[in-house]
């Protein structure tokens, strides 16, 4: 391989890979219409294989060239309609493509690969059909060679071709608007002009420039093959002729001869070839993309990341009074953001690139297992970061294979079950909440839970008692256990016991989540949720003990702040752990400061010790607080925590304060500290300080937060405590500082808006606030109902109902809770318009309101027309 620029080889590999990937799809296409193959598809395949072969000659990759050549020969027969494709033939060709692919993966050693077996399979179809080589044509070409040309031929090497080009320079200049010098330079790029002869009409150039045609005949040596001479930029009136000494290899004759027949001695149409240079692809269609090295992109990405940091620093530093500098900073801000986004986009690739592979996978597996399976993909154009996409390919392939192998039943089984004979697999990708969701659904037999259980017991992965405690969903998740394979006979496709756990690990490594749903006899759905990119993530910056940490927003559910007495009351103690009752779900609490101070995995003693200490601390603080408040001294007690989610579990992380959100550039952890599970990386904040990014799953593990199973149990205990009668209603509880507590059904609430009372405008008796650019009527409950006057606050809440006739909102001075409540509605004790009934919630008499009826009391005019 000496003497060849490695970057050229790299390019060859990349290009060949691209061609071969495209070809696979075309084969599948072809298979659908065996009787009437689409000539364009066949042509595309032919061109692709041909290009691979062509470049091989140049690099001396003989094995690849040999195989590609045989394939090409067969393809040329298909192209010319001499042969009709059969399923077996396509199998052979696909096997060829596979082998080519694997040889290209290790191109330097490709010559050591034995291609004869696959080649033989392909060649079988060629010899079968008794193709008569049209020798006479080859002969004709041969006989025309004169001595001079023979001499020229001796000057070309193997893999190169000699052409005789005759062109009328005068016409050529008019048509192409290029000078002869340009022609020569263009040709020189493609090959070498061995000799040339200029015939000028006038004969004597000294008199004047001759008016007649100027003819130029030249001998041109190039690697461009006869059927690719489109690439030589010469016009329609010119003739290109291939001069060939003898057929290069015996079995190439069919293709070459036909190629010669088609394209040599043939007036070429310039329109296609002009300006195309040597790029074969552009003849087929303009290609707007450019191949760029990934490491270059990575570097660009890193630089953009640094620019973001500089920008952030500038934003902090800027002098707000100076309007010129402010304008510049603003522009810098905008440009940086756009630059960063654009660079991010360069790394994005459509998921279709991965999806398209599965057509082939499904076809092969289906064939092998004698099943009928179709695959449908949606959202092929959804884009993902290149790194994620690459890592995703393997787990996805595994899932799809599993679906084919274990999921979809055989045709007979499907018939028996009353399903359509053809099973189907759906792949669906879509964006949601800044994440990519991928759904893999098959309508197969689903997961047999009892068999799964047996298997788990048999392999002693879990005990019977443990299994008994699991919910159905948790049982399904057992398939992610390492070392489990439910299929009796291990096939070579899947079921080697290194299955779903590997899939799960690789998805989780990408910061993604996988979950499974299955209905026995109906099918299985796997849901993957993945981040768009790994490099830049939105995150929440929090502070603990004067240190800052970043929490990825993906893991963030909500933020809760407790004040004064709530700090003391609401954080309760269950066993050795602090918990908070968040809308009737028990939320285990973790104190980040304690977690940071304790490098050991939390065990019961540590947890107990922490809980006790803080219970005491809280008491002391609350005492101080009360004392201070009694003495009218300002003393605030507040506790912030973030509700974080890991899979389906949640926990509260207690922090000192919340600083805000920031888009951070993720840098991986240093090798020496990579093993610390609680961090997922580090980042440089706007002010230049380094902050660590918390790994929420790691935190949960370190603090041994109870997961789904235990959590359910605790919840059940609570649920059991609440009388399990009557219907459950999702309610928003609120109050007006008076004795009364009110509730509205969540279904009727659009949202709740914070309202500063100084923003309220008055027109006569009516109050209005501008919300979403719309003047919204504020309805005070005391207007409509006989209730006590509320205490005025500077900041109140406006409950905006759904489906309002006119924009209005109900004023509340405090929100109590949102949650599911068992409602035992009493419709008699408090009877008024606008009130559905009363009930006791949270030990308070609560009036369940009907917003629309309240509006009707406050603004009867709105409802006149309809009455």
């Amino acid at each position: 391989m000496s003497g060849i620029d490695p970057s050229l080889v790299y390019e060859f590999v990349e290009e060949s890979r691209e061609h071969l990937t495209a070809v696979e799809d075309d084969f599948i296409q072809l298979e659908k219409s065996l009787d009437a193959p689409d000539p364009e598809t066949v042509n595309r395949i032919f061109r692709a294989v041909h290009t691979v072969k062509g470049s091989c000659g140049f690099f001396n990759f003989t094995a690849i060239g040999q195989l590609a050549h045989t394939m090409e020969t067969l393809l040329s027969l298909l192209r010319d309609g001499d042969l009709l494709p059969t399923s077996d033939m396509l199998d052979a060709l696909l096997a060829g493509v596979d082998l080519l692919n694997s040889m290209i993966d290790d191109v330097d050693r490709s010559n050591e690969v034995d291609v004869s077996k696959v080649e033989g399979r392909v060649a079988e179809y060629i010899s079968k059909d008794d193709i008569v080589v049209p020798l006479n044509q080859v002969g004709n070409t041969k006989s025309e060679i004169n001595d001079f040309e023979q001499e020229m031929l001796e000057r070309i090497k193997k893999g190169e071709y000699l052409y005789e080009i005759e062109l009328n320079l005068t016409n050529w200049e008019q048509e192409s608007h290029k000078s002869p010098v340009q022609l020569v330079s263009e040709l020189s790029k493609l090959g070498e002009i061995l000799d040339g002869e200029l015939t000028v009409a006038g004969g004597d150039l000294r008199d004047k420039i001759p008016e007649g045609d100027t003819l130029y005949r030249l001998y041109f040596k190039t690697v461009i093959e006869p059927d690719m001479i489109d690439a030589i930029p010469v016009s329609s009136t010119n003739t290109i002729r291939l001069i060939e000494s003898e057929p290069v290899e015996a079995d190439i004759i069919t293709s070459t001869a036909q190629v010669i027949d088609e394209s040599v001695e043939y007036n070429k149409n310039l329109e296609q070839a002009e300006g195309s240079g040597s790029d074969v692809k552009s003849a087929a269609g303009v290609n707007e993309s450019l191949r760029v090295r990934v490491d270059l992109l990575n570097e660009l990405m890193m630089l953009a990341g640094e620019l973001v940091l500089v920008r952030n620093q500038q934003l902090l530093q800027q002098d707000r009074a100076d309007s010129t500098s402010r304008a510049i900073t603003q522009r810098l801000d905008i440009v940086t953001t756009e630059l960063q986004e654009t660079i991010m986009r360069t790394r994005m690739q459509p998921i279709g690139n991965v999806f398209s592979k599965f057509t082939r996978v499904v076809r092969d597996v289906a064939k092998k297992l004698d099943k009928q399976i179709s695959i449908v993909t949606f959202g092929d154009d959804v884009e993902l970061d290149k790194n994620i996409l690459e890592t995703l390919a393997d787990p996805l392939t595994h899932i799809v294979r599993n679906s084919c192998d274990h999921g979809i039943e055989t045709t007979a089984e499907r018939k028996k079950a009353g399903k359509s004979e053809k099973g189907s697999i759906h792949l669906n990708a879509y964006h949601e909440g800044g994440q990519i969701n991928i759904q893999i659904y098959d309508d197969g037999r689903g997961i047999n839970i009892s068999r799964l259980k047996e298997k788990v017991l048999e392999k002693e992965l879990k005990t019977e008692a443990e299994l008994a405690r699991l919910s159905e969903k948790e049982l399904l998740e057992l398939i992610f256990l390492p070392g489990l394979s439910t299929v009796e006979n291990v096939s070579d496709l899947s079921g080697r016991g290194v299955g779903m756990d590997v899939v799960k690990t690789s998805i989780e490594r990408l910061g993604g989540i996988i979950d499974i749903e299955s209905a026995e006899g109906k099918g299985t759905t796997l849901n993957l949720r993945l981040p768009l990119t790994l490099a830049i993530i939105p995150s929440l910056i929090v502070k603990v003990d004067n240190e800052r940490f970043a929490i990825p927003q993906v893991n963030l559910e909500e933020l809760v702040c407790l004040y004064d007495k709530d700090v003391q009351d609401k954080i309760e103690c269950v066993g050795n752990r602090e918990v908070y009752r968040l809308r009737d779900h028990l939320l285990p609490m973790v104190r980040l400061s304690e977690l940071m101070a304790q490098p050991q995995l939390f065990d019961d003693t540590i947890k107990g010790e922490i809980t006790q200490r803080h219970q005491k601390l809280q008491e002391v603080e609350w005492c101080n607080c009360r004392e201070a408040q009694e003495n009218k001294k300002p003393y605030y007690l507040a506790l912030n925590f973030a509700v974080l989610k890991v899979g389906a579990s949640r926990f509260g992380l207690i922090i000192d304060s919340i600083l805000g959100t920031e888009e951070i550039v993720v840098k991986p952890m240093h090798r020496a500290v990579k093993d610390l599970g609680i961090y997922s990386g580090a980042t440089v904040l706007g002010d230049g300080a380094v902050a660590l990014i918390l790994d929420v799953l790691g935190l949960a593990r370190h603090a041994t937060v109870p997961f789904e199973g235990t959590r359910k149990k605790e919840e059940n205990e609570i649920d059991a405590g609440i009388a399990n009668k009557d219907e459950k209603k999702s309610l928003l509880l609120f109050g007006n500082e008076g004795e009364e507590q009110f509730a509205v059904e969540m279904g009727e609430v659009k949202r709740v808006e914070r309202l500063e009372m100084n923003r309220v405008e008055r027109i006569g008796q009516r109050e209005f606030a501008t919300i979403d650019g719309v003047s919204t009527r504020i309805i005070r409950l005391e207007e409509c109902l006989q209730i006590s006057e509320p205490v005025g606050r500077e900041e109140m809440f406006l409950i905006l109902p759904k489906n309002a006739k006119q924009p209005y909102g109900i004023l509340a001075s405090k929100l109590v809770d949102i949650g599911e409540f068992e409602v035992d509605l009493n419709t008699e004790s408090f009877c008024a318009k606008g009130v559905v009934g009363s009930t006791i919630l949270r030990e308070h008499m609560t009036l369940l309101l009907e917003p629309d009826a309240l509006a009707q009391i406050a603004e009867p005019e709105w409802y006149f027309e309809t009455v």
Partner: protein
Amino acid sequence: MMTTGIKTIEETKNRENGKLVQLATFRIAGRLLGVDILDVKEVCDNISITPIHHASQKICGYMNIRGQILLVVDLRTEFGFDERAVDEKSKVVVFKDTVDEPFGILVDSVENVADVFDGQITDRRDTEVDGEVDSELLEKRMAKNDLCKGVCPLVDELVLILNSKAVLE
């Protein structure tokens, strides 16, 4: 930069004591240590370190150098000295990427560059050191973790040569 080893060079030139090695020297708890200058990328002051909780004791934390995140290692505890707060003389000696992933060590102060010949450096990792002299005590401790590549006498002091590749092991 001034070289303290000038005299040594002259002495040894005649002895043809092998290749010239330049040592970047610095002090930790008063002891003079050195590393091959070719392993050093830069020396950096203006130290502001973000601690990494749960990491081993010698890991001081992360630091930002022009947008790059650098792991800072404090060898004091590893050498058996007490911890000490960063002051204005403290510096971070940053190693090149060829040594390991980007990291630096926190030192009390940096000294000069010493030119020595590799023949002057004695590798005593395999020999028993008495441990009576102060520097030998440290050498012994360092030897436990393969941290000491050898010792080399300068004009008036012995320099312990730090095996930078072993720092993070």
